[in-house]
């Protein structure tokens, strides 16, 4: 009987995370079109509902009612499983994300490793989608994207190593708690290079502009999902935006104190006591999502060899050097971050 209640409890938790997440994804696409539109002196969607606010819902209905076309000579089973492989890890990661001081679906010890392992799985969706489509453009796109994901994953992993060294724990709640004590105690300051690298590598991992060579409309049509339509395409789309939100929330958890208040241990602390931690986390996450959209609106696409050079020859050495420096800082217990 107890197990049934436990399972029910977990199910309710999952629904509490996943349903709002889908809604947020839908409105991230809307705000992306709006924000980029305004940045480029356009209006963005205006037709469906006031200010085009119902546009994402119209898009969802359109995608769901379209036919899934399977190309001839495509490997049918893999063609249909690739979007699922893409979507599942990016959903699964949300199970360990602490959304407030009390709420996390699974507060596991090795949370950071879990995230690292799962984000490394999404590359299969990309490779299989490209291969199974039996199309040159899709295959080229998937090759580009996979090489890029592998290159940046290493720098990303090293940035995470820096965080876990500073926090002394792999548990995400403990990582947040170890950053207590106001805005200058958060890890963005002592780990500044790692923070910047993690942010940029996050853009590259999610295949977004300016690192979107895997889509490269002007070169290879639309990249690895060029042959997909309808629901199958919607799943790729969903996974991409979920990863975008995930990277933003991870940056805010690991470098910006997660649900901690920025006014901690200052004069204003008591005035902002009533704001729940979830609100702070949302504000931080939304500002990083905005930065991602901003990047897409302003920067031109990188050339492919430049991307590879940046990943392997610049980011990787910087992370390794900073981990050494951080080790020295931890050894000498530099205040206020490394007092254990």
């Amino acid at each position: 009987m107890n197990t049934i209640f436990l399972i029910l409890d977990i199910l309710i938790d999952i629904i509490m995370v996943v349903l709002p997440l889908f809604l947020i994804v839908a409105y991230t696409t809307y705000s992306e079109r709006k924000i980029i539109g305004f940045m480029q002196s356009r209006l963005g969607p205006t037709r469906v509902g006031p200010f085009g606010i119902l546009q994402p819902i119209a898009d969802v209905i359109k995608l769901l009612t379209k036919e899934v076309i399977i190309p001839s000579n495509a490997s049918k089973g893999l063609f249909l499983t690739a979007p699922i492989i893409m979507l599942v890890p990016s959903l699964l990661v949300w199970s360990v994300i602490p959304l407030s001081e009390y709420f996390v679906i699974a507060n596991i010890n090795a949370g950071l490793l879990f995230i690292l392992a799962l984000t490394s799985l999404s590359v299969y969706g990309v490779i299989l989608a490209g291969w199974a489509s039996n199309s040159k453009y899709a295959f080229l796109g998937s090759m580009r994207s996979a090489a890029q994901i592998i290159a940046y994953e290493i720098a990303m992993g090293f940035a995470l190593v820096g965080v876990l060294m500073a926090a002394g724990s792999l548990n995400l709640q403990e990582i947040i708690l170890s950053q207590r004590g106001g805005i200058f105690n958060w890890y963005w300051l002592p780990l500044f290079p790692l923070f910047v690298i993690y942010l940029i590598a996050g853009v590259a991992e999610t295949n977004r502009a300016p690192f979107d060579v895997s889509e490269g409309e002007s070169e290879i049509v639309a990249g690895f999902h060029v042959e997909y339509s309808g629901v199958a395409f919607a799943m790729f789309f969903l996974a991409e935006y979920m990863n975008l939100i995930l990277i933003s929330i991870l940056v805010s958890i690991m470098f910006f104190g997660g649900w901690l208040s920025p006014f901690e241990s200052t004069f204003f602390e008591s005035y902002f006591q009533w704001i729940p931690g979830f609100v702070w986390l949302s504000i931080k996450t939304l500002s990083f999502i905005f930065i991602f959209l901003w990047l897409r609106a302003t920067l031109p696409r990188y050339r492919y060899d430049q991307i590879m050079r940046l990943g392997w020859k610049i980011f990787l050495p910087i992370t390794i050097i900073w981990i050494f420096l951080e080790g020295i800082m931890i050894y000498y217990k530099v205040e206020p971050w490394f007092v254990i």
Partner: protein
Amino acid sequence: MNVEIIIFYIFSLLLLSSSIAVVTVNNPVKSAISLVFSFFCSAILWLLLNAEFLSIILILVYVGAVMVLFLFVVMMLDINISQAKEGFVKYFSIGIFVFATIAGLLSYFFYNQFDNSSKNIITSIDLIGTDNTKNLGYLLYTEYLLAFEIAAIILLLGIISAITLTLRKSTTNKYQNPSQQVNVSKSERLRIIKDEGREK
């Protein structure tokens, strides 16, 4: 019935069937994917044994890194299945011999180990907590430091030898020198031509 036992049987079944699929499936890409899936299933079995660090590392290293590169290579190669299957009868006897030797050795070893399993369990090591990951790190950097470093050096040697084997300066490669690209001035790229016909 216990939930863990149900999960164990489901994933053992999946593990066995996907491992069989690795050798029986005709398409090399599909067989590589079955291998990925079997790694994944065994990671879940490890998780059931409370070895969360090892199971996540199995996914991270083997599924997330090694098999991706493997899949890359397999996709790029144009493997002819019928040609690969030609020597089946010729190599069958050798295959049986190798299989019998390995199976015999393994079953002998496992039988002996399970027989006196109490001798193989390490009991005399002090652990620093219940956290699997922390304990493992602690042991690796204290008790087994030498073995750990030797393994690291062997891996480094592997990396260096792999790079030296494949690194050949090809004369047909086209390469952009980034520092040269960055240091160009306007006068090198841009020439302003006065259109004299227009001025008249």
